[in-house]
């Protein structure tokens, strides 16, 4: 009788294992499960949803929101053209300050309400009023008029390319502001509910769960449904790359947003899998302190530029990144090579001219993102090159908020000499890099090179209007202002552009990576083979 508890426990274990055996067992490479049938399963490396309100959403949830909500337009990075979505056509006045969008007929929100100009006006005005997330993109809008149910007229405070603004992946969604009835719409969204016009609607959401979010087809979607389209979408949170890779191999998931370069190469050679590689709109820049410290001397900044071998960094990262020809990534207006080639001899000459040498060694302080292996490789290579030129690099990995706080310190002595950060646009327009990073400001915010160049400011101020009225001239100005910032002011080195390396099951077609919508798969565009 003394052994009864042990025997009971053993019996329980046997029962448990027997029950576990009841679970389905599939051979490697087999289909079925959540990655098969009419469900498209996306293995994403982070939690998916932190914000359900389309006016406020400004984070990872864009991968789901882009399938639930739609905007007036969509940007195609391959053709650099703006495509119609909820708006079928648009016109602008000669001065670029009045834009008229004609709405698509036959569109309904998931609430059942018909899309019309009033709904568009109400959605954008609510987004502007909440002033959260990327709502600032609508700042140029002075007023919105609705002369007819299918026509929306935007009057702007100053000219901008509103078709690009309307295509933003954040803050530009059109949603039904009356979906909650007389209730609080913000609270209604949190439950969660959606009020979009997109092909999918929220089926279930469990914060913190592995399969965090499920979407199901919206039957009355204006784009219609064909038999070979996915009717359900599931998002599985998969932080470990190796786990995502194994789930993909087994067919448990349909799509993986990132792999290591080695696994990506393996995926390209694996039967049943397909891969896609394209440069993103996200680049890494090294901003040099033009206002104080040793880099206030332009000769020293040029020397650091000349000692930065970006090709070596790209090579060391084995395909995870692509070379940055300029500040503007490929696929955006004004792209084109503007850069400085490495030249160690010239760098040493400049340093000597600036008074630095063995008797007066130069010491530079650099801050970069903690935990970012790609950045740490750049820092290691730069440190090595600087050391050979007699420069000591004091590199400090930091969390973003600490790194940013230090850079904004009112005490210039506490600021860094080199600030390394990623930048990306909220919509497909390079203006974001220039107005945020290089326009002078009394108190630094994102202008962390602390550049104060009136000629640069003047050009930046003209860019939105030119983009709206004369894109060719805008492209030329983007190139000239980069020449000024990168070569003459030596305020920055564009280091590399992140590559998007996706792997997915080859049993569907229609996937095309669009860097304007990072990590988004427009599932309605896919067709099962």
């Amino acid at each position, binding site marked *: 009788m003394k052994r009864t508890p042990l025997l009971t426990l053993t019996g329980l274990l046997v029962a448990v294992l027997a029950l576990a055996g009841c*679970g389905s067992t599939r051979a490697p490479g*087999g289909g079925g499960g959540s990655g098969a049938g009419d*469900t498209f399963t996306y293995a994403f490396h982070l939690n998916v949803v932190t914000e359900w309100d389309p006016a406020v959403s400004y984070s990872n949830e864009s991968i789901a929101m882009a399938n639930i909500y739609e905007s007036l337009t969509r940007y195609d990075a391959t053709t650099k053209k703006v495509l119609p979505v909820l708006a079928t056509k648009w016109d602008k006045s000669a001065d670029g300050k009045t834009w008229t969008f004609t709405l698509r007929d036959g569109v309904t929100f998931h609430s059942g309400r018909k899309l019309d100009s009033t709904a568009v006006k109400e959605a954008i005005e609510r987004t502007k009023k909440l002033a959260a997330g990327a709502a600032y993109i609508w700042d140029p809008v002075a007023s919105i008029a609705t002369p007819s149910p299918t026509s929306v007229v935007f009057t702007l405070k100053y000219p901008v390319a509103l078709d690009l603004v309307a295509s933003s992946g954040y803050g530009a969604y059109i949603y039904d502001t009356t979906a909650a009835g007389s209730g609080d719409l913000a609270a209604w969204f949190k439950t969660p509910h959606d009020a979009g016009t997109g092909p999918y609607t929220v089926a279930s959401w469990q914060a913190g769960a592995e*399969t965090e979010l499920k979407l199901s087809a919206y039957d009355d979607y204006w784009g219609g449904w064909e038999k070979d389209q996915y009717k359900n979408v599931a998002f599985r949170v998969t932080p470990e790359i190796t786990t995502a890779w194994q789930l993909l191999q087994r067919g448990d998931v349909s799509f993986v947003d990132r792999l290591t370069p080695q696994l990506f190469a393996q995926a390209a050679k694996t039967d049943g899998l397909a891969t896609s590689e394209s440069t993103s709109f996200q680049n890494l820049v090294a901003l040099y302190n033009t206002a104080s410290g040793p880099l206030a001397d332009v000769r020293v900044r040029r020397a650091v530029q000349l000692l930065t071998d970006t090709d070596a960094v790209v090579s060391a990262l084995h395909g995870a990144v692509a070379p940055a020809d300029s500040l503007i990534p490929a696929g955006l207006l004004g792209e084109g090579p503007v850069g400085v080639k490495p030249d160690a001899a010239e760098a040493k000459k400049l340093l000597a001219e600036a008074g630095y040498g063995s008797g007066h060694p130069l010491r530079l302080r650099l801050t970069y993102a903690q935990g970012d292996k790609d950045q740490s490789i750049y820092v290691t290579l730069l440190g090595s090159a600087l050391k050979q030129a007699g420069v000591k690099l004091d590199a400090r990995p930091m969390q973003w908020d600490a790194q940013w706080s230090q850079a904004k310190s009112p005490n210039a002595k506490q600021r860094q000499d080199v600030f390394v950060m990623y930048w990306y646009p909220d919509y497909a327009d390079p203006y974001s890099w220039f107005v945020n990073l290089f326009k002078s400001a009394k108190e630094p915010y994102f202008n962390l090179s602390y550049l104060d160049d009136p000629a640069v400011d003047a050009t930046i101020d003209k860019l939105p209007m030119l983009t709206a009225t004369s894109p060719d001239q805008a492209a030329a100005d983007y190139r000239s202002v980069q020449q000024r910032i990168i070569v003459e002011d030596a305020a920055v080195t564009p280091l590399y552009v992140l590559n998007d390396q996706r792997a997915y099951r080859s049993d569907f077609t229609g996937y095309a990576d669009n860097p304007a919508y990072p990590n988004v798969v427009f599932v309605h565009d896919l067709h099962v083979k």
Partner: protein
Amino acid sequence: MRTLLLRRVGHAALVVAGVVCLTFLLARRLPGDEAVTATGARATKEQLAAARERLGLDDALPVQLWHYLTGLLHGDLGTSLHTRQPVLDDLRRALPASLELVGAAMVLAVLVGLPLGVLGARFARRGTDLAVRTGSMLLVSVPVFWLALALQLLLATKLGWFPVAGEYDRSLDSSSPLTVFTNVTALDALVTGNWTVLGSTLHHLVLPAVVVAAYPIGVVAQMTRAALIEESQQDHVRMERALGFRPLEILLRFSLRPAIGPVLTLLALVFAYTLVNSVLVEAIFNWPGMGTYTADAIRSVDTPAIAGVTLVVALVYVVGNLAVDLAQILIDPRARQR
């Protein structure tokens, strides 16, 4: 007995209060700006100012601590800056999943580790004992991420015996929807008689539980063996041998009970340690527990979430140790005299 209990509970309350205050103050002293974490890297000046006001970051530190402590008394652990959900809600979801995983691992540790320890003690300094000691040493020292990846690759991907990752097959949600009571999936499925989900959950649980159990199995086996060998030197064992009891019977009937005290104490410590240490295992097997939540909180400097997790872990330590103290009192009458 009552005094003893009151003293232990009082000590436990002091420990928890100390941990709460220390965690809060340390979190506030971390370099950086909580408002940036709350609003995102691209927040405007206005959004940052609004966040500072909403989070009370402009208040003096003692005022912030007071607000935090009064909030705690009302069950408010703050709002996670990362998930934007109340921390208590997040923990309600994550803790049961971790307890399920670690609980299964501890059951395995007892079921496997205890018999292994008995076996080692029974055949001390012989081949079987050497095998037990070597095996348990391997289990204790093998890196948990390596074991997780190796088992996942071999038993899930190559052989297909187990799922690669996840808590259960979520495609069952439509055919066999699970009614949730406790958030411990296996328990909810068992209570509601949802055998399909229970089978799937246990099937998914095997690999991560085995990996998490590796260290506790090794520790329990070694500790049990050592405690039993020490007990076998006692006078009562000589008498039991003289009375003709067989060696295994002496071990199980007379030596195991007095030797189990240190093993129980160790189990409580190992339980809390394993709860914290399962971060990597949960990440590798997509297990939606505290490990994944904690890693995300640390990565995004989510101070309310970090403080909440610390509080929970401290509570687990304290409650675990209290439970062991009580168990020892029940099992071993000598403990009541201490």
